[in-house]
Every structure is written in C-alpha cells, then in structure tokens.
C-alpha cells in the first residue's frame, strides 16, 4: 500500500522533470506508450505506470524498477505520445539518478544489462573502438554464464562475422583522457 500526503514536496518529480526536460505531469495515462514499447512485457512497471509513480513521488519503487534498464531508447513511445512527453529522456534521467544515488537493482537481468554497458565502455577506454569478440566473452565471464551463445560462436567466427582482432584508435590517450574528464564534468554538474 502507498500512503500519500506525508511528503512535503515531490522532489522526485522535480528532479526528473529538470533532468529530462520533459514534464511528467502532462501524462494522462492513455497507455499508448505501453502497447508501443517492445519490451514493456519485461518491465516490472511499464512506462505509463512509471509516470504515475513519479507523480506519486515513489522514489524507491521508481529507482529500483528494472524498467529504466530495459528501455532500449527506441523512441517509439515518444513518437506516438499524444502529449509529446520524451519518455526515453525520463527513463534515462531516472537511471542516472539511480546510479548516482546508489540504488542498485541486482536482479539477474538488470545486472547483465549493466555489465554489458560497463564492459562496452571499458572496451572503448581500452581501444577507442568496440571489439565484439572480447565483448561477448567478457560478458559471459562477468555474468558467470560461460557457455551462453557458445553455439553461435563457431558459426560467427567461421563466417568472419566477428573479427579476432581490433584496430585501436591511434590517439588512444585522448580517449582515456576524455573518460577521466567526462567523469569530472559529470560530478561538477551535479
């Protein structure tokens, strides 16, 4: 059960609106986003419900929801939203706040998604470009699912779909410096 009327101010709403540039209050719960979203069935709260939870100021529930991690930013919802709410931006805002405030959803699927993104970024830090073989392998190692997609690997390698080597960016130092400074800038903006 949710008890309302205890919060002085809906800080969640204010923060999400500020970061996303959208106005969540405009949502009138038509549900077009939910049936548009390709992954809404995997979310524990589909976009429409996330909007209402934000309006109700339910921080914990919103931050811990897997919805924000499942969002593919495919922008199908925002393209069809009758109130033109930038739903992907809202999702991204929640995700960034959740990361900053250390709300960690540790269910397997979310963990897997988060790991994928971390590995991908590590890869860029390392090479300046992505490297699929290592990406797949490392993801399997880090998620302790060593044999996932093993059936795919030989076919893919054989077909040359996945190269064995990557050609890194020449000025890799510049890339690494970018990572460091982006981090700093992020902190400064908060």
């Amino acid at each position, binding site marked *: 059960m949710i008890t309302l009327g205890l919060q002085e101010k809906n800080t969640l709403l204010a923060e999400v609106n500020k970061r996303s540039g959208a106005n969540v209050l405009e949502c009138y719960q038509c549900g077009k986003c939910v049936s548009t979203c390709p992954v809404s069935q995997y979310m524990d709260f589909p976009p429409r419900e996330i909007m209402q939870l934000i309006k109700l100021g339910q921080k914990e529930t919103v931050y811990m929801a897997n919805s924000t991690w499942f969002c593919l930013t495919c922008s199908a919802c925002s393209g069809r939203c009758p109130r033109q709410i930038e739903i992907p931006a809202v999702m991204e805002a929640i995700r960034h706040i959740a990361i900053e405030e250390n709300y960690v959803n540790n269910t397997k699927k979310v963990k897997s998604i988060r790991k994928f993104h971390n590995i991908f*970024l590590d890869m860029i830090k390392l090479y300046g470009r992505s490297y699929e073989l290592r990406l797949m392998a490392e993801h399997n190692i880090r998620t302790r699912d060593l044999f996932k997609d093993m059936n795919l690997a030989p076919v893919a390698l054989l077909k040359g779909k996945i190269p064995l080597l990557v050609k890194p960016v020449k000025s890799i130092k510049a890339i690494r410096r970018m990572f460091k400074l982006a981090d700093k800038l992020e902190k400064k903006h908060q």
Partner: protein
Amino acid sequence: MKKLTYFPGCSAHGTSEEFEKTVRMVMQRLGVQLEDIPDWNCCGATSAHTMSESLAYALPLRNLVLAEKLDNTTMAIPCASCYQRMKVTKIHMDENPELAKEINSTIIEEGTYQGKVAIKSMLQYCYEDVGLEAIKAQVTKSLAGMKLACYYGCLLTRPKAVTQFDSPEYPMSMDHIVEALGAKATDFDYKTECCGASFSISNSEVVLTLTSKILEMAKESGAHAIVVACPLCQSNLDMRQPGAEKHSGKKFDLPIFYFTQLMALAFGMPEKDLMFNKNIIPVEKALANIGKIEPEPEKSKKTKKAVEAESEVA
C-alpha cells in the same frame, strides 16, 4: 566526383564488414568519393548514454570535431546507431552552445566544434542526395522477381525531431530504392519495430521474442528476404534467426541483406565481392527468385456497361 565525409563505425571492421565493403563499392560506382574521418573513435552507442551524460556527448563530439577538418558539408554514416548518437549530439550541441563550449573545451583537445557538417545516414544520403534516378541509371541486372521486406528498425527514422527523415511510422525510402533496383517491396507492417538492439548479448531472450515477431510478419508479407540498413538489426535478425526459429517454433528462412549489397548486385558487380558468404541464413534460395516473374493476375476485361453497373451497386 562528389566528395563525402564518411564515418565507418566500429562494426565496419567486424560484424558488418559486408555492409562497409558494399557501401564503398556502390558509392564508387555512383560517383561519390568517401573520405574517412581520420582516427575516429567509437560513438559510445547505447552504453555511453545509459551510464553517463557527458560521455555520451563527448565521444561523438570528438568525431564531429575531426569531421570538420575535412572540407565537406555532409557526412554519411552507415550504422544506424552511430548515426543516431552523432546526430543527437549535433542537435544538442547546436541548441546549447554553452554546453557545447564547456564539453569541447574541457574534454576534447582536437579542436573546436563549429557545427558546420550535416549528418545523414547512408540510406538518407542515397535517397536524398544520390536520388532514385541516379540509382536506376546504374542498374544492369534488375532484381525483378524478388520480393523484399524493408526493415528500418528504430534509429533511422526516429525520433522525428532528430532524424528529420521519412515517416517514423511507415517509412518508404528504402522501399523506393529496392523498387528502383527492380525488386518488389512488400507491404510490411513491422518495418520500424525494435529488434532488441544490444540486448542481443545481455538479454538474448528479449531479442529472440522481438525478432521472431518481425521475421514472422516479414514472412507473412510474402517476402523472400529482408533488407536492412543497420548492422545491429542485421546481426540480430540474421545471427539470431536460428534461435528465433527455435523460440517461436516456426521456420522463417529469410536471409538478411544490406540494401547496399542488393544495390551492388543490381549494378552487376561480381557476386563474390558481395560477401554473401557472411550471411548465416543462406541467400541462394532467395536470390534464385530473380527473374522469376509471376504473371500478373489478369484483369478481366469488363464491358463498359458492367463497370457502370458495378459502381451503381457500390
């Protein structure tokens, strides 16, 4: 010869080598000289903007800065995801010059962003700048007989405010291009549904569900194959197709082509250069349809009176 700034993207040397190669071949034939951005880096894809805002803008911005060093007004990007990230960054930077200045000056040392290069996807470039007529002019081996479902995915036409190209719900540009090549584009309702993108690795079950629906609808439309313009879409639909068949219990057998592969084919380029061998679903059966033109269902020649009578009833 026209010059065009070109951003290959990471997958060009990996999963989508055939796309990369055919793009270069086709462009050469169409009289466009590609100039690669020197020492480009990864655009950060979904991961960067999932995790950090500044990084999501900084990575593409470096490429934009480097691109401005070449003297062209337009840049084309084959990969839909790279295209999307670069264009989002360009629009955001143009709208917030203060932020652009800050990120530029603190993070990027290669130069100052000026915002003078227009960004287009390779599909958009072919459709708008090259034009259907020029493409038609190069066709030596018509693809007539082939029925193709054109699949655009999410990022080529969405969100409208960013891409400013074609309809986000029912785009037709690729359909027009394949028809220019002689093939028939089928009426395919799932052309902009999402394929699951990077969940391919992290949550493959999602991808299997989504792709099987797309493949099913493509099959439904009567297509022999699917045409795409995005490496991730291609790999999800192609590499995951056996999985999708297992997942849904249906047989699809739809090879996934890049539109440039088909262009090259229609332009009469040697088939061995088109790297069909890289396709996981074999292409031969689909390509065999070329030249097999089904007879048009004969329109019964009605008398003038009968036509009149019919409209009276209607």
